[in-house]
């Protein structure tokens, strides 16, 4: 499809600017020539061209509203429309972040209650809603841990991270100056306790654990793990991206997690927007409350107020208060589901994952054959042997069947990984049809592997030359 720039024609526009109604001044005079730009080369298109351009682009994109999206670790559950409508209310969209507190009582009540709900759901002492996404929450959490030890006058510079962890875990730790030590997984996909024992010492600030982990498995030895870390004065950090696996079933705070970040755009059904915005609230236990980012909401007799008066705070991790409008959607979600709804959502999410696991087990290698939580991870090893078909081929072939592929090649400890997360909003018919497609592909791998390698067969574009893209990077269009 043509680029908007290629559709541009001098003199066109999608709406005029009205005349100024104030006595006009000469711009050059008030600003000064040297500060003014000489040319502005933005697209010139009529409104109809604009609408057709982006509407047709949208039709080349796949979203949850079109079909099944079992992208592992991303919890692509259905995004209820009522939440979108709630977030679109002018009272929520129209307020300036510096509106005086009195004028923003509705927003502040919503955020304060949201923090309380998250505390009850996760068993933490306090939450901040400031982080913009999961990774941002991780960073915020690690910074608080840093501050915690600084305060205690301890110099701990190491963070333990399992080999199965998501890339943002080490990256976030590194971004705030920690060094990373990789922790091995054991044969059943959990933490290798002996290895943990051997690594844990007074230089270790924290273990960054995803539980259930990226294999979709719950850490059976979590008590042991927690004990080992805490005995040596370390902290237990939880990556809550997989929280859809245990809402209303268990609470990280009860289990011993000192810090946890969530992804509202996963667990709490806010749409992912094609890559964002998300929202990554962070919850902490009592010991870390003082280090939460500012400003924080305090409840006074005159109502809610923003306060920066927390001397031990790490400060700000972004401007203003976080992704407020995303938080509105998650708040509406929690209110509409209530405790029963959240619990049954988790139960059905886990049931769906185990159902897929059982149905596909005969056809694909299942490296860790246990009851899984919200997702299951297969390996495409067998298909490589049988037909030289790789996981990426299977993914592309699924597109021809009308599905978004699962997450692939992650976690890295599983060769040819296929990470499938169905979520609770998918029906049995949908899962059955998806499994049929997977089984068909397994068949094709034996009978007609080329067909799988040529996939996708009926998309706007076929497989992309990613090597070219990286070798000769073209990230901005240039007029020929």
């Amino acid at each position, binding site marked *: 499809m043509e680029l908007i720039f290629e559709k541009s024609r001098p003199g066109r*526009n*999608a709406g*005029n600017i009205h005349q100024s*109604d104030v006595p006009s*001044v000469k*711009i050059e005079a*008030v*600003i000064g020539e040297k*500060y003014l*730009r000489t040319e502005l080369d*933005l697209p010139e298109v009529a409104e109809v061209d*604009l609408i057709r351009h982006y509407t047709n682009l949208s039709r080349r994109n*796949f979203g949850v509203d079109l079909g099944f999206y079992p*992208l592992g670790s991303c919890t*692509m559950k259905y995004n209820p429309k*009522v939440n979108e409508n*709630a977030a679109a*209310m002018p009272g929520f969209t*129209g307020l*300036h*972040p*510096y509106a005086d507190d009195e004028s923003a*009582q509705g927003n502040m*009540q919503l955020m304060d209650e949201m923090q309380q709900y998250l505390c009850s*759901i996760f068993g933490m002492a306090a939450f901040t809603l400031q982080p*913009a*996404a999961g*990774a*941002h929450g991780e960073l915020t959490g690690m910074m608080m841990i840093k501050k915690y030890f600084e305060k205690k006058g301890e110099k701990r510079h190491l963070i333990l991270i399992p080999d199965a962890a998501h*890339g*943002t875990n080490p*990256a976030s730790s*590194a*971004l705030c*100056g920690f060094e990373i030590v990789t922790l091995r997984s054991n044969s059943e996909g959990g933490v290798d306790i002996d290895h943990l024992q051997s690594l844990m010492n007074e230089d270790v600030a924290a273990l960054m654990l995803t539980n259930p982990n990226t294999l979709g498995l719950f850490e059976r030895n979590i008590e042991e793990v927690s004990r080992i870390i805490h005995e040596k004065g370390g902290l237990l950090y939880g990556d809550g991206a997989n929280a859809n696996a245990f809402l209303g079933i268990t609470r990280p705070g*009860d289990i011993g997690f000192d810090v946890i970040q969530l992804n509202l755009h996963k667990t709490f059904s806010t*749409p992912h927007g*094609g*890559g*964002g915005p998300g929202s990554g609230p962070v919850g902490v236990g009592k010991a870390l409350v003082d280090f939460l980012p500012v400003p924080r909401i305090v409840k006074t007799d005159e109502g809610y107020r923003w306060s920066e008066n927390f001397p031990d705070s790490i400060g700000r*991790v*972004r*401007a*203003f208060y976080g992704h*407020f409008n995303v938080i509105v959607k998650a708040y*509406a979600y929690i209110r*509409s589901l*209530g405790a029963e709804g*959240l619990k*049954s959502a988790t*139960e059905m999410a886990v049931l769906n994952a185990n159902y897929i696991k059982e149905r596909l087990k005969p056809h694909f290698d299942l490296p860790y054959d246990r009851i899984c939580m919200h997702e299951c991870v297969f390996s495409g090893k067998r298909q490589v042997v049988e037909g030289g078909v790789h996981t990426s081929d299977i993914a*592309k072939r699924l597109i021809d069947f009308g599905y978004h592929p699962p997450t692939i090649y992650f976690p890295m400890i599983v060769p040819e990984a296929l990470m499938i997360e169905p979520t*609770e909003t998918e029906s049995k018919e949908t899962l059955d049809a998806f499994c049929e497609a997977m089984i068909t592909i397994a068949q094709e791998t034996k009978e007609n592997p080329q067909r799988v390698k040529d996939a996708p067969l009926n998309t706007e574009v*076929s*497989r*992309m*030359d990613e090597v*070219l*893209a*990286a070798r000769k990077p073209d990230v901005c269009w240039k007029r020929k």
Partner: protein
Amino acid sequence: MNYTPHTGEDVASMKADVGVTDIEELFVDIPAKYRLKQLLNIPAPLSEQETIACMNSLSRKNTLPSLTLTGAGAYNHYIPAVVGHIISRAEFYTAYTPYQAEISQGILQAIYEYQTMIAHLTGTEIANASMYDGASAMAEAAVLSAKTLNRSKIIVARSVHPEYRSVVHTYCWSNGYEICEIPYAPSGQIDLDMLHKELDENVAAVLVQSPNFFGCIEDIAPIAEATHSCGALLVAGFTDGMALGILKPAGELGADFVVGEGQSFGNPLNYGGPYLGVFAAREKFLRRIPGRLVGATVDKNGKRGFVLTLQTREQHIRREKATSNICSNEALCALAAGVYLAALGKNLQKLAALNIQKTQYLKKQLLSIPGWKEVFAAPVYNEFAVTCPDAGEVNEKLKKEGIGGAYELQKNYPELKNTLLFCATEMVSKEDIDKIVAILK
């Protein structure tokens, strides 16, 4: 409400297939003593109608001003109708990050177009797919500079947005970098002499904003020269992105990184978020910058298409060696910005000019009030600082009339007593301004 489609029948047969008789059995790996015995302590579920009623009553507890004079990092601009219609296309907003290019060409091309527009607006060669917001974009630019040059001192102008400085502070503290703030000159711009004094071989980056927090336009060229003279990198930010439509972009004036808040491009105020972190840079930093990058390439039939590229910079490949930890970004806000900029086109310049006109008029009228004085001499875009007898009282009066007041600079600049930062955009009419002045006279 409950969005699970499972019928009793479904659950029964699925349990059988999975081999459990009770859902509880699926959670055996969770130590029994940690399994909750009762329901979570949150309010009872609501029907959809009740949910809307509940949200409605919350939203009505806010008071929306009929017009606002508040800027200071978030701007009340008109959003063309097309923006909302496009970003509410389900194929866009219910999609994840475009990992699978073949079924994600829509968002990929839109982001590629966005990157192109941003690079042009900022006067640089490249821009990424977005950062969380303007403040974190600036902070990451600072950290990136330090890591790139292996230096540990960050210089930031005090005329930079206070919250941006505080974010930069947090990021730098956690990495053990030293931060040095440069005061502003009487003009409201950075104090160049002080800058020169602080510049040394250990300075990784100089952080400025233009327009800066006072609305003043910084003179970037000499700052760039000074910065580069000691091998440091210049990170130039901006407040209201719309200013880029009429001001000479920092990229053209020597900045190495141009970062800032893109909220003005088609994103509502939303009480502070989600906004749009703009991150643009010189070509040479292409393989070091944080964030997603969409690149053009061809498919196996030679047809043009788009992909996420240079991912070896990113966390999912490089892990602790990644140039940043960012994963989810602000894709939908970037889409909105792309649509906004395509809708405005060259009119962005006219619109920016209109902002200047309104601002100049508001300024002139306010300064006609006895006791009101201009604070800074430097040229301004759509914000300016004035002193008045009683800043608090001014905002009280405005509030009574349902008008969003000016930002009180004293909050962050103790020395600027009774000093107000006013902002006027295209949303403020002459009539409004005259009314405001009448109220304050």
